């Protein structure tokens, strides 16, 4: 079962990195969003600094939406999903594998790119570790919550908009605490508040990892069978 799980994750990463998966798309979109902000706000440094955490997180959310709808849909459309669901993995673990692959392709690169973006947006250098930590802790939640949306819209052509519409309300807490962590860190380094926000973020991610796959599997069963 471990072998099956790893094989699936590896396959999904490989497919996403290639055609139609749009792993690169997320990063580029993220960059564009972040690059747009100074355009709108003007290069006023203190304002930018204030906005930076929020913009980074908003960009993150939007970028993760971009690739969500293909998470299950591609496999369902070409019949692979039938075969996957007959394998040794319960559907819940299939959902975990796919969420994980999604995170590796969209979340992880963004976490790695975060410091660069932070500099572009004038984040104080001391907050960088906090920013990265918050993103590392928070982004998995996006993929795992997103899986439910992706599962619910399986079978809907051009489900991208619908999936985003369904998922965004559930992204709100991640956004709030994600921004909270970075902002708190920016104000008072090593602050109590930052640590607390991180804890909340961690809790949300854990909950998403625990519940997301169950929801996704339930939705897939309901819709496909």
């Amino acid at each position, binding site marked *: *079962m471990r*072998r*099956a799980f*790893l*094989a*699936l994750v590896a*396959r999904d990463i*490989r*497919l996403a990195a*290639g*055609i139609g998966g749009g792993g690169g798309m997320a990063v580029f979109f993220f960059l564009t969003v972040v690059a747009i902000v100074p355009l709108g706000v003007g290069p006023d440094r203190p304002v930018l600094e204030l906005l930076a955490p929020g913009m980074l997180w908003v960009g993150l959310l939007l970028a993760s939406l971009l690739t969500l709808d293909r998470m299950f849909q591609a*496999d369902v*459309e*070409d*019949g*692979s*999903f*039938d*075969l*996957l*669901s*007959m*394998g*040794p*993995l319960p559907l819940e673990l299939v959902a975990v594998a796919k969420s994980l692959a999604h995170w590796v392709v969209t979340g992880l690169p963004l976490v790695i790119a975060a410091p660069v973006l932070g500099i572009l947006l004038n984040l104080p250098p001391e907050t960088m570790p906090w920013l990265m930590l918050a993103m590392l802790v928070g982004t998995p939640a996006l993929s795992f919550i997103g899986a439910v949306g992706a599962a619910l819209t399986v079978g809907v052509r051009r489900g991208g908009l619908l999936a985003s519409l369904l998922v965004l309300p559930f992204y709100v807490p991640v956004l709030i605490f994600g921004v909270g962590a970075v902002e708190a860190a920016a104000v008072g380094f090593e602050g109590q508040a930052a640590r607390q926000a991180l804890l909340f973020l961690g809790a949300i991610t854990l909950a998403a990892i625990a519940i997301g796959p169950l929801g996704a599997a339930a939705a897939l069963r309901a819709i*496909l*069978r």
Partner: protein
Amino acid sequence: MTTSDLRLAARDLACIRGGRLVFEGLSFEVGAGHALVLTGPNGAGKSSLLRQIAGLLEVEQGEVALTGGDPECGIAEQSHYVGHLDGLKPMMSVIETLRFWRAFLGAGDAASPDAALQAMALAPLADLPVAYLSAGQKRRLSLARLAVAPRPLWLLDEPSVALDAASVARLRDFMAAHLAGGGIIVAATHLDLGLQGAAELRLTREMAS
């Protein structure tokens, strides 16, 4: 034929699709080493029945059971399903595809991917991306998947479609070998698959009423 007591039995099955009753009151039994051929006009419910057995479609009523196999696994995990959609990824190569399925399905003592390709006369194409295959070659690759992970029950939906004469013969031998090894085959088809001594279950549109 091995002395296995594998047995696939369906009792009083019914199927509803998109709000329409497709069939009801369907019962059958197949023992180890035997094949059941599903025939009938388009829309009679052959594919639907296969998907129900494979656990891919809700069983509205009645039940299907596979007894005598691995008691820890459901039917789905003990069967191979080959449907109209081939589930192949254009960008993966032929050999990668088989390697993935072998790893995913848990190989046991199955044939290696290379041997499976050999059996389906695909060996020269091993490193090509799936996108480069012709229709028949794709279908042969789908069938080669059955060789890389041993499972006792094969559910085949029109498996001979797009195959040339030589490949149809290969498929026949492949199925015969599976039966000889104590496996079970349920196959839907409009053509003769050359399964000797197979029972036939004919579905008709009237079964629904």
